[in-house]
Structure formats: structure tokens, C-alpha cells
């Protein structure tokens, strides 16, 4: 049975008041709160297990190494990666994407090459590609979307014919909530022999992920958006790709042998993990994965859908309401503007009522340009949010709108 109250008890941060009002935390797409088990796991690591890994022969080092590698296995199983070494731990989605852009640049990018992204990408899945491709006088191809926030797959098909070297797409848009048909898009790209990167930052906490079924070549994600600590995330890559890709950063345990003339690199996945990793956070991530798996995921999805529906129903009663992103398949968040009211003003007022939302361009400025707005107000949900909180939020928005009109 899905019991939101018992879940909330595992998130102490939620029980606080801000400005004397109960906190309503609807900024989960930016970062989720952490359950006690995750906090305790990381704490326990520093209390009892802290050690540098992989090179120590002593007891603690071996124990920490084993724990870290077990975390890798847990994450691999969570997204159904066939092999644990196909998971590279990184600081998060942004670092994973920078790793890919840099490594691809050295591997196969040539003068005038193209990279394909979509019109709804977060800056992290746009700027690394843009900067890399510009160094080679290449071009960033962009799949357009319609007014509802749905990608134009016919245009995508046409853009694939221009033979981009890589396709990199968001699984779920952080601004619009659109769930993109990644499996279909991957099949289409593969018909042209183009590898596909999927940005899973917004999906890991909400959707079951199966990288084999999807057949993506790479999948990237952040721990902190899925109840895990900050500073940890990952990159899944197919072995055939990871094997031939050159390293991204150098030094530490990523090497095999070093002389002044030559260095050979360690095997997968260590080739991509230069320097001392964030072991404690990796263990926290493992615990977060187990936490997500311990709760009926279907029930969580239904609960989050109910929150979204309640929010949309309530907000649509407010005069001047304009939803940004109305795709039929969406998840976890609602983005909107109210005619004549700046999102910043609205966010400032409802903050004073205890409601935490995000206002602004959500690190996706081209999306704002596409819709001709300075920004949106975005409410994003997690499993611990309640229908009552949505009601408080809707009332707060209504009250603020009346003040600001």
C-alpha cells in the first residue's frame, strides 16, 4: 500500500515551517529531498568506513572498494545495464555530458560535423555540444517542437538525413514535463547508424528505466534528483563505445602504467574515473536506488499523476492562466505563466506563503524564447508531496495573482 504520510516521515526536512507556514516543497525537478536512510548511509560511511579505494591493501580500503563496486552493480541493475562496468560514476548529468562531448571530440569529430539535440534541452545538454561543435566549425541541429511541447518527429527524420555524428535528447523535459518517445527516436537514429545519448536527469525518479529495451548508446543522470546526495551521478554507455572512447580527465586511478614517455589507461569503467571518487555519495546513491525500489513504483507514478492532475485542474480556474507544455505524455511537473504577471513576482509572493517553486528560465533559455516568455513558474512533484499541498499551492497562486494584478 502506498502511504504518503509514512513516506514523508522519512524526509525530516519536509516537516519544517518557513515564515511560520508549513513548507510546501515543489522544486523537486531542481533537487529532491533525501530520505533518512540515504543520509544515514553517507554518514555511516564517514563514521566507520571512510577510506580511499582501489589501491589500498588494507582492510578498510578493501571494504570501501567492495562497497563502491557494489553500488555500481546496484545502479547497473536499476537501469538494466547488462554489465556493471558500463556504469561510470560522475558528479552528475552535466559532467556526464561534458565527458561525452569531450571524448567524442577526440574520437570522431571532424571539421564541419553536426550534433543533433532538441528544442527542449536543458543547457547542460546543449552548451557542451554547441561549444565542442563550434570548435570544428560544425553545426548544432535542433529538432523543433509544437505549441504543446511535443517534438516534431517528421522534422527529426529529416534532420537525421543530414548525418549528425551524435543525437542527444532529454528523456523528460525539465521545463515542459514532456516525456519524449526516446525508444522510437533511438530506433530512427540507429537506422542511420547514429549513436544516441539520453539525458535522464528528470526521469530516473519517476519512470522505470531499461537501457537495453530503449537501446540507447548512452544514458546520463544525476543522483540528487532521485533522492540521492549531491555530487554523484552517472553515465551508462555500451561497452563497445566506452572501450574505444578516449579518457576525459587524467590522473589517479584511471591509469594503468605511467612513465615520462607514455601512459596506458586502466580498464573500464576506471578509465573514466580520474581522481578520488565521491565514495560516500555513491553509497548514498545505492541506498536511494534501493529506497525507490522498496516502494511500489506503479503506485508512486499514479500518486504523482494525481498531484499533477490536481494542480492542473486547480490552476486552470485562475484567470489568465497559460500552461507552458501540454504534451499528452508528461511527468512530474507543471509550468505556467499568468497573463500580465511576471513569474518572478509570483514566485516571490508564494514563497512568503511557504510554497517553494522555481521561477525563471530553468536553464533552458531557448525554450522560453520559443514560447515568447521571460520565464515560467514551475511546480515539480516527488513521491512525498500530497494533494493537500497542491491545494495550498493553488490557493497561494490565486492569492498572489490577485495581489499582483
Amino acid at each position, binding site marked *: 500500500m502506498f502511504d504518503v504520510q509514512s513516506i514523508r516521515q522519512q524526509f525530516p526536512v519536509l516537516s519544517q515551517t518557513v515564515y511560520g507556514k508549513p513548507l510546501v516543497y515543489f522544486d523537486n525537478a531542481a533537487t529532491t529531498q533525501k530520505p533518512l536512510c540515504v543520509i544515514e548511509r553517507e554518514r555511516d560511511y564517514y563514521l566507520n568506513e571512510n577510506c580511499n579505494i582501489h589501491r589500498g591493501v588494507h582492510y578498510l580500503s578493501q571494504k570501501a572498494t567492495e562497497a563502491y563496486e557494489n553500488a555500481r552493480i546496484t545502479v547497473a541493475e536499476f537501469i538494466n545495464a547488462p554489465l556493471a562496468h558500463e556504469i561510470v560514476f560522475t558528479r552528475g548529468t552535466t559532467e556526464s555530458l561534458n565527458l561525452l562531448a569531450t571524448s567524442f571530440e577526440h574520437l570522431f569529430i571532424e571539421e564541419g560535423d553536426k550534433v543533433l539535440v532538441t528544442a527542449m534541452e536543458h543547457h547542460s545538454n546543449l552548451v557542451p555540444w554547441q561549444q565542442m561543435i563550434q570548435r570544428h566549425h560544425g553545426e548544432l541541429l535542433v529538432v523543433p517542437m509544437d505549441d504543446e511541447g511535443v517534438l516534431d518527429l517528421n522534422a527529426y527524420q529529416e534532420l537525421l538525413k543530414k548525418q549528425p555524428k551524435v543525437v542527444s535528447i532529454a528523456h523528460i523535459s525539465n521545463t515542459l514535463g514532456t516525456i519524449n518517445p526516446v525508444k522510437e527516436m533511438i530506433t530512427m537514429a540507429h537506422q542511420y547508424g547514429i549513436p544516441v545519448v539520453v539525458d535522464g536527469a528528470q526521469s530516473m525518479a519517476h519512470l522505470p528505466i531499461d537501457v537495453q529495451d530503449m537501446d540507447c548508446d548512452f544514458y546520463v543522470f544525476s543522483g540528487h534528483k532521485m533522492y540521492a546526495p549531491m555530487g554523484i551521478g552517472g553515465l551508462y554507455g555500451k561497452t563497445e563505445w566506452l572501450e574505444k572512447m578516449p579518457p576525459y580527465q587524467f590522473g589517479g586511478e584511471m591509469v594503468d602504467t605511467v612513465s615520462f614517455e607514455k601512459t596506458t589507461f586502466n580498464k573500464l569503467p576506471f578509465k573514466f574515473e580520474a581522481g578520488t571518487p565521491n565514495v560516500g555519495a555513491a553509497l548514498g546513491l545505492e541506498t536511494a536506488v534501493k529506497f525507490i525500489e522498496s516502494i511500489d513504483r506503479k503506485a508512486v507514478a499514479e500518486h504523482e499523476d494525481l498531484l499533477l492532475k490536481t494542480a492542473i485542474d486547480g490552476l486552470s480556474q485562475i484567470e489568465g492562466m497559460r500552461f507552458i507544455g501540454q504534451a499528452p505524455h508528461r511527468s512530474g511537473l507543471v509550468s505556467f505563466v499568468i497573463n500580465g504577471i*511576471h513569474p*518572478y513576482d509570483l514566485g*516571490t509572493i508564494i514563497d*512568503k506563503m511557504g510554497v517553494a517553486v522555481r521561477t*525563471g528560465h530553468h536553464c533552458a533559455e531557448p525554450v522560453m524564447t520559443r514560447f515568447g516568455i521571460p*520565464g515560467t513558474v514551475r511546480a515539480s512533484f516527488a513521491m512525498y508531496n500530497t494533494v493537500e499541498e497542491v491545494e495550498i499551492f493553488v490557493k497561494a497562486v490565486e492569492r498572489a495573482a490577485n495581489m*499582483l494584478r
Partner: protein
Amino acid sequence: MTIKEIQDSIVEDFSMFDDWMDRYAMLIEMGKECPIIDDKYRDEKHLINGCQSRVWLSAELVDGKVNFAADSDAVITKGIIYLLIKVFSGQTPSDILAADMSFLDEIGLKEHLSPTRSNGLLSMVKQMMLYAEAFKIQSES
């Protein structure tokens, strides 16, 4: 009126309200009253960085006194900058540069003074001081 006298009267106005909502309502009203800036100043050159909303600020020196005008697409931000304009407009560059800004604490806007706040109150104050500094150097040379 001197800067200090204007600040005192603003503090008095705000002190009538205990509730934050009333204080914000007052800022919003001020935002709506703020004189519209001339369109020619609504450009990149007059944009203040560091704000989530856009803020344009212009200044001119008339008879040794600085006249500010501003606009913003967010009404609370506009209220805040209008408050600053009331304090600084019509004052000499030297008086502006010597001004004590602690009145912002007294009207409950202190939280907006942190450099991390996205409304950029701090950037607005800095920009006004920069104008004053420039006018001061200009008139001394």
C-alpha cells in the same frame, strides 16, 4: 529633503504594517506608480545584470543633481527600484556616495540585499552608486 529624511519617511510608511503581505502590497503599488522610463533607455546598455527579471536604469546630471529613471518587467522589482529612486533622485553625487543604506533593514528588505538574491537589489544599489561616482569624477575634472 536629505537622503536621511527620505529614508526615515519610507521607514515610517512601512512601519505601519506588521504583515509581510501588506509590505509587499505596498511595494507592488509603488511598482505600479513608478514613472515609465523613456523607451530609448530600454536597451542592453541600461540593463542591470544579476536580476531574474529585467531592470533598466538611466541617470542624468541636472544642475549638479542626479535624476534616475528605471523600469522592470517584474512589478516587485520595479517597486524596489522606485523606492531607491525616491531616495537618490535629486541628490548630489557626493551625498549619494555617502548614503547609509541600513534603512533597507528597517523596512524588512534586508533579505533582498544578499548577493545571491535573484532580484538584484544589491546590483541596483551598486549601479546607482556607479552613476554617482561617474558624475562626481566628471564634475571634478
